[in-house]
C-alpha cells in the first residue's frame, strides 16, 4: 500500500514523464473532476452539434450532399458515444451526464447555439467549426488521460474529412451563381467570429487553463491554438474568394501571422450564459427527444429482464 504522498508523487511523475494516466490508476480528485467535466462537455458538444446540421439533411441539394452530410452527422454521434464511454471510465454514467446536461450543470460547446440558416452554413460549419475543433483536438491527442488521448487520435482522422467536406461546399458555392456566392459570404460573416471564440477566453482570463496545463490535460493555450487556426484559415478563405469579416486584420511580416481585431467577448459571455440565438432550442430539443424516447429504453430494459427470468426458469425446471 502506498501512502497518499507516494501516490501523488507517482501520479506527478507519470505526468512529468508523459506516461498516460489510465482508468485504474490513482489520480487526484480534482484531476478526475476536470477530466469528467471536459469529456462530458466534449461528448455533449458532439451530440448537440447534430442538431444544426440535422436541420439541413432533409433539404440537402443533391443525393451526394445528403449522403455526405448524413455520414458526417453519424460520425459526430459516434464521437459522442466514444467520448461518453471514455468519461464512464472515470466513474460517471451516461445517464448522469445527460441529467447534468439537462439541468445545466454540464455544458456543451457554445458554437452550437448559433443557427444554421442556409445551406452555406453547412459548408461554414464543416470548414470553420470543425476546422477550429481539429486544431484543438490535434493538440489534445497528447492529453495526459489515456482514454481521452486515444479517442482524440481516432476522432481527428474523421474530423479532417469533415473540414474538407465543408470547404468543398464553400468552394462549389463560390464557383456558382451570384446567389450562391452571396450565401457563402453571408455564412462566412456569421460563423467567423463565433469559431474564433471556440478556443475559449484569452489566456489571461481563462479559468481552467493553468491547472489543466500543469496536468497536461491541455497542451497548448487558447491563444496559441486560436492563432494557429487563424493563420491556416485566412489563406483558405482568400483562395476561394471569400472576404474575412475583419476590416482591420493585418498580416505581420515579421511574425508571419495575421493580426485580427479584438474579439467581442461580451457576445461570448452572453452566449455562454444562455443568451445565444439557439441555447433554449438546442437544450429543450434534447430534453424533449429524451423524454419521448423513454418508453423505448424502458421496453429494452424490461425485455432483457424478462429474457433473464425466462432463462432462469429454464434452468430451474
Amino acid at each position, binding site marked *: 500500500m502506498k501512502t497518499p504522498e507516494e501516490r501523488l508523487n507517482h501520479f506527478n511523475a507519470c505526468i512529468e514523464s508523459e506516461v498516460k494516466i489510465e482508468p485504474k490508476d490513482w489520480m487526484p480528485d480534482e484531476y478526475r473532476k476536470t477530466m469528467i467535466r471536459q469529456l462530458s462537455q466534449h461528448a455533449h458538444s458532439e*451530440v448537440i452539434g*447534430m*442538431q444544426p446540421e*440535422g436541420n439541413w*439533411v*432533409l*433539404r*440537402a*441539394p*443533391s*443525393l*451526394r*450532399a*445528403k*449522403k455526405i452530410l*448524413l*455520414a458526417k*452527422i*453519424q460520425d459526430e*454521434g*459516434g464521437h*459522442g*458515444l466514444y467520448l*461518453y464511454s471514455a468519461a464512464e471510465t472515470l466513474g460517471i454514467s451516461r445517464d448522469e451526464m445527460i441529467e447534468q446536461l439537462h439541468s445545466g450543470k454540464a455544458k456543451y460547446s457554445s458554437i452550437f447555439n448559433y443557427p444554421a440558416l442556409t*445551406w452555406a452554413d453547412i459548408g461554414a460549419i464543416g470548414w470553420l467549426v470543425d476546422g477550429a475543433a481539429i486544431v484543438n483536438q490535434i493538440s489534445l491527442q497528447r492529453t495526459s488521460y489515456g482514454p481521452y488521448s486515444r479517442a482524440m487520435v481516432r476522432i481527428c482522422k474523421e474530423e479532417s474529412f469533415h473540414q474538407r467536406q465543408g470547404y468543398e*461546399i464553400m468552394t*462549389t*458555392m463560390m*464557383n*456558382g*451563381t451570384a*446567389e*450562391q456566392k452571396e450565401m457563402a459570404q453571408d455564412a462566412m460573416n456569421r460563423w467567423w467570429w463565433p469559431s474564433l471564440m471556440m478556443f475559449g477566453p484569452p489566456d489571461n482570463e481563462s479559468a481552467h487553463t493553468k491547472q489543466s496545463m500543469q496536468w497536461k490535460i491541455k497542451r497548448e493555450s487558447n491563444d496559441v491554438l486560436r492563432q494557429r487556426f487563424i493563420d491556416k484559415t485566412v489563406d483558405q478563405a482568400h483562395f476561394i474568394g471569400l472576404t474575412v469579416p475583419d476590416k482591420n486584420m493585418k498580416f505581420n511580416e515579421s511574425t508571419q501571422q495575421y493580426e485580427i481585431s479584438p474579439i467581442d467577448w461580451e457576445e461570448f459571455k452572453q452566449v455562454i450564459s444562455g443568451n445565444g440565438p439557439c441555447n433554449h432550442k438546442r437544450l429543450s*430539443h434534447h430534453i424533449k*427527444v429524451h423524454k*419521448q*424516447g*423513454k*418508453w*423505448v*429504453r*424502458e*421496453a*429494452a430494459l*424490461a*425485455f432483457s429482464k*424478462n429474457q433473464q427470468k425466462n432463462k432462469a426458469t429454464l434452468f430451474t425446471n
Partner: protein
Amino acid sequence: MNTKKALYNYCLRLADNNLIAGQRLAEWCSNGPILEEDLAMTNFALDYLGQAEFHYNYAAELEGKNRSGDEIAFTRSERQYFNCLLLEQPNGDFAQSMMKIFLYSAFAKLLLGALTHSQDERLAALATKGIKEIKYHFRHSSECIIRFGNGTEESQHRSQFALNEIWPYTADLFEMNDTDQALISLGIAVDLNSLHTSWLLSVNEILNAANLSVIHNQHMYKGGYKGNHTEHLGHLLCEMQYLQRAHPGAIW
C-alpha cells in the same frame, strides 16, 4: 409499353422507394430515443440513399435525355413518383417507424433476392449489392419489434397501434401494373404475386414472436406504383426539393 420505357419506370420505382425510405429515416437524425438508435436509423437512411443514387443514375442513362440522376430525383412532381404508399407515411413514433422498416424490408429482402437473377445485368448487380444491407435492416427491425411486443405494456400498445396503422399500406407493395407486365416475361422484373406467401410467412413469424396480431378485413390502400399517392408525399417533396427548385441549374 416498350421495354426501355418499362425498364425506366421500373428503375424509377426502385429508386423512389429507396429515396423516400431514406428521406423519412433521415428525419430521425438527432431525434432518436437513444444515441445508438439515432445512428442506426440514419445508417439505414444512408443505405437507402446509396441504393437510390445507383438506380437514378441508371434511370438517367436509360432515359437518354442528358438529365442527371439528381435532376430526376429532385425535380419531378408528386404524380411522377412511383414509390409505394407505405414508405411515404409520416414517421409517427419510434414504433411506427420501426414497423414501416420491418414490413418494408421483409418485402425488399425478397424482391432484391429475386432481382439478383434478373436478365438485366445492372438491376441484378444492384440487387446483389443492396440485399446485404436490406437483410440487416430486416434483422434489426425484427429484433426491435419483438422487444417492443414483449417489453412494457406501453411498448406493446404502441407496437400494436403501429401495426394497425401501417398494415393497410402493405397490399400496395404487391400491386402490379403495365410496367411489371412488360418486363416479367423477359425475366427482367419480378412477379410480385410470387413473393406474397413468403412475405406473409416471414412477417407473421416475427409478429407472432412479438405477440402482435393483424386486424383482418381492413381497407387496403393502393396506387403508389402508378403515382397515386397519399397527401403526405407532397409535403415531403416540398422540403426535399426546396434548393433544387429555388435555384434551377445551380451546382451544389
